[in-house]
């Protein structure tokens, strides 16, 4: 900058005047001496060599990792769309953090615009420039790039101020420091834009133009080797990462072979995981939304990814060193509720859940994980077939008491009770209400006698053995009973049956009761005005929202209990209740309870009713609300809200007050 300023100041007054009013033509140096060309060539080679020194290592590490056994490139349509929407349009980046997102988008788009400009810039140095600054297209394109350069310069300055002066905590490292490298990179980008724009203020062919050209070139060539050394590697890798995603949210890949137990050592890291790990831009969106990180746990999803990167950098993908050790901790891996916020938010296409669940698989499938609660849970699933370790006869008693018919193939739906609906008193209330609605609608349903846990907690905690046993046993039972359609009150059951069971067979069609209720809403009586006098806040269950993309259906049901208000974190930004990932069954010892934090957020809305659509959320909130005293809002499942609008049940079948058949 100083050089530009002095060159302008040393010019004549007329030139100075001309300089203040920019020309519409970008100034280019007239000619380059041979030594200049040789110097340019040497600098390019040097910069490229420095770049490859680092980047080549990264590429080799990624390629040396194990192949993703289940990866399929086709169909391409979805990949192209994701690339267009998330990379080219920057949709995710902007949507989740609008202002900084837009600033980032401008930087990105100007880089795109500069692709041609930069090529021409370097070509000019060898006398091979192909864009004529005075020509129609050249003038137009340089001006367009100029507009982007201006937006980019303003944006990068803004982002610089945000990072170093506003200092959002999630941008900081574990030790709460912010590394200077981002500042240097921001400075270089700003300089690139400034040296480009300044060329509109100097005469073409002037010394000043030459100085600006060289300044721009030197900035560019120092920027290049820095890219693979810093998080700006995402510039190159993340478009590829987004394009090569595993294809569905929170997808847990199948184990490759008999020696694959999940992520145990470096040998288990796959190419996609390695690519993703090197793509991390350390933006901290994952951490910002993580319920564990927000409640004082050790788990920080960004550090999980950076931990793997650290591992790959030190040991490489062929190492036998355990992954849970220096770079990642077992405690952190088992604090994840698998709410999926991190993966959902990640702008560079990192899939955190396969990594976190993969680390758990590695620890559980080999017996390394030793946890009192976890062991008890697995034994309960092994021995009792339900996560609560309850006697099967308890479920039978409930079925008899509620007169729930057995599924015999003649009914439309198999009503899946799940562990909560079958054993938990609160979950049973939800079933009772939902059955009232189905009876009112005349929908036929039946319950499987030997239903077992879907295996969700085992799946998320990484116990492939128990999960497989449960999935296979249930699939066989469903097939024997010729079940075509399942309906469930539990989003975890829905997700596990619909997606995770695919590893072991073809599950029947399944839907969540919110979808069913919304579809039949027109046939339901309107809620009594008194019932909907207050306000209601709906809590989006992770496994219904982010996992299944169902947001509006439950809201349409919940609205019957009061005017809907939204929590600050809602819909796809909803904050977990703390139960997912099997954590409902583990002790939550570190930090604040996720459930308490979430209940606090929901209470802040001032709503008189909290509407839930998941029995796990329900039970977590129930405990958390207990400490809030009598003023706490009431907690209802959407099935209970729907049932409240029904006329009193006919005397022959008053569900919930049936005489004990014993």
């Amino acid at each position, binding site marked *: 900058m100083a050089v530009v300023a002095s060159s302008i100041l040393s010019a004549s007054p007329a030139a100075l005047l001309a300089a203040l009013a920019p020309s519409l033509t970008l100034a280019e140096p007239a000619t380059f001496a041979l030594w200049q060309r040789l110097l340019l060539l040497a600098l390019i080679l040097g910069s490229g060599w420095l770049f490859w020194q680092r980047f080549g290592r990264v590429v080799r590490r990624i390629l040396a990792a194990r192949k993703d056994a289940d990866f399929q490139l086709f169909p391409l349509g979805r990949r192209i769309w994701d690339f267009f929407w998330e990379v080219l349009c920057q949709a995710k980046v902007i949507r989740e953090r609008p202002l900084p997102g837009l600033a980032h988008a401008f930087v990105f788009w100007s880089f795109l615009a500069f692709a041609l400009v930069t090529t021409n810039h370097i070509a000019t140095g060898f006398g091979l420039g192909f864009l004529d600054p005075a020509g129609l297209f050249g003038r137009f394109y340089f001006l367009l790039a100029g507009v982007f350069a201006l937006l980019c310069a303003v944006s990068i300055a803004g982002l610089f101020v945000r990072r170093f002066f506003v200092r959002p905590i999630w941008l900081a490292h574990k030790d709460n420091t912010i590394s200077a490298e981002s500042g240097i990179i921001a400075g270089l980008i700003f300089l690139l834009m400034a040296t480009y724009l300044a060329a509109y203020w100097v005469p073409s062919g002037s010394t000043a133009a030459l100085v600006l050209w060289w300044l721009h070139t030197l900035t560019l060539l120092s920027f290049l080797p820095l890219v693979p050394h810093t998080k700006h590697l995402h510039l190159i890798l993340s478009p590829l990462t987004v394009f090569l995603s595993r294809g569905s949210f929170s997808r847990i890949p199948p184990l490759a072979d008999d020696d694959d137990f999940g992520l145990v050592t470096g040998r288990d890291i796959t190419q996609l995981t390695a690519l993703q790990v090197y793509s991390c831009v350390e933006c901290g969106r994952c951490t910002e939304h993580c319920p564990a990180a927000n409640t004082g746990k050790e788990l920080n999803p960004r550090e999980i990814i950076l931990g793997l990167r650290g591992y790959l950098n030190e040991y490489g993908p062929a190492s036998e060193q355990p992954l849970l050790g220096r770079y990642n901790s077992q405690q952190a891996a088992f604090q994840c509720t698998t709410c999926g916020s991190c993966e959902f938010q990640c702008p560079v296409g990192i899939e955190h859940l396969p990594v976190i669940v993969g680390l758990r698989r590695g620890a559980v499938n080999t017996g390394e994980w030793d946890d009192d609660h976890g062991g008890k849970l697995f034994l309960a699933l092994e021995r009792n077939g339900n996560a*609560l370790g309850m006697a099967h006869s308890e479920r039978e008693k409930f079925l008899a008491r509620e007169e729930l018919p057995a599924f015999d193939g003649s009914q439309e739906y198999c009503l899946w009770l799940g562990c909560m609906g079958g054993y*938990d*008193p*609160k979950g049973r209330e939800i079933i009772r209400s939902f059955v009232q609605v189905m009876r009112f609608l005349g929908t036929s349903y039946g319950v499987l006698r030997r239903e077992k846990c879907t295996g969700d907690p085992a799946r998320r905690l990484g116990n492939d053995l128990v999960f497989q046993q449960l999935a296979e046993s249930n699939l066989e039972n469903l097939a024997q009973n010729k079940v075509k359609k399942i309906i469930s009150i539990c989003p975890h059951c829905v997700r596990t049956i619909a997606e995770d069971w695919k590893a072991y067979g073809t599950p029947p069609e399944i839907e969540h009761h919110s979808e069913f209720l919304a579809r039949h809403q027109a046939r339901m009586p309107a809620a009594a005005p008194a019932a909907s006098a207050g306000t209601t806040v709906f809590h989006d269950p992770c496994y219904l929202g982010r996992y299944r993309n169902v947001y509006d259906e439950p809201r349409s049901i919940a609205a019957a209990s009061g005017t809907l208000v939204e929590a600050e974190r809602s819909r796809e930004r909803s904050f977990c209740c703390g139960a997912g990932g099997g954590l409902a069954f583990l002790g939550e010892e570190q930090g604040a309870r996720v459930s308490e934090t979430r209940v606090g957020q929901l209470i802040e809305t001032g709503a008189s009713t909290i509407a839930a659509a998941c029995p796990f959320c329900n039970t977590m909130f129930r*405990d958390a609300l207990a*400490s809030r005293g009598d003023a706490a809002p009431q907690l209802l499942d959407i099935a209970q809200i729907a049932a409240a609008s029904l006329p009193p049940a006919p005397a022959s079948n008053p569900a919930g007050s049936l005489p004990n058949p014993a």
Partner: protein
Amino acid sequence: MSTVLVILEAKSGSPSRISLEALAAGAALATATGAQLAAAMVGPAAAMDSLGSLSAAIAIEHPLLDRYTADGYTAACAQLIARLQPDYVLFPHTYQVRDFAPRLATRLGRVLLSDVTAFSLDGNTVTFTRQLFQGKLNGHYHAAAPAPCLVSIQAGAFHAAPSAPTSIPVESFAPALEPSAIRTQPGEPFRAATQTVDLSSAPLIVSVGRGIKDEANIALVQELAQALGAELAASRPICDAGWLPMERQVGSSGQTVAPKLYLAVGISGAIQHLVGMKGSQCVVAINKDENAPIFEIADYGIVGDLFEVVPALTTAIRKAKG
């Protein structure tokens, strides 16, 4: 005349209550089969002075039997049985009997009929009833082998007769025992050092839930627990609120308990709690909500305001205990 021999177990020098129940079972069996009743016990003759009417009372005495060992008791009882030739040998079903009686039966070429709750006479055959599948099924057995038939009697299955002076003088029986035949070296019995709180082995537990409303009210339940001699426990919300320490939490994220009595005060019965106490032998619930799920698994229920019921119960228990 055939003989029913009851081998009693001494507890602090005299026959234990469950031994006297076994003796009552023996008396009933002797009456039913027209046999005479004999009793034997390891220990001094003086301890057997109030066993009522017997055909023989035998004190088994030997220095090597001062402390129980399976080897010693097996050898001594085998010699006594060889001498008396009884048709039936009855034992109280105690931990000690479970330890040596199967060995004794094997030495005699028989199988012990363990943990019997009842018997009936069907013609000449005595049918014994014992529980299968943790009490979910009764099995009816008879002995196919020749006498003697060895049977252990479950605690509480028979009522002990009121104590009466032993009808005949107590004989002493000194078995021939060699120190080398006793292979185990038993140590002095001891009670576990009282740990901070070990709910899992507590026989009586009073547990409090969020129905208690306020920390200050915990004292009310504490008094009840004291009167009952029970450990105090709580559901998770109480421990989360810090009203009681975490180590007293019962449930999926706390301790799993299996007491004889679990008295749940103001606990509605969330699943996380139920899974921690479902093994309790007897559950009593006090709750103001008659629909509270805890009543589903309770043996006894009181629907009412705990602030009235608990003090009334504390008073009643104190009165009952004198």
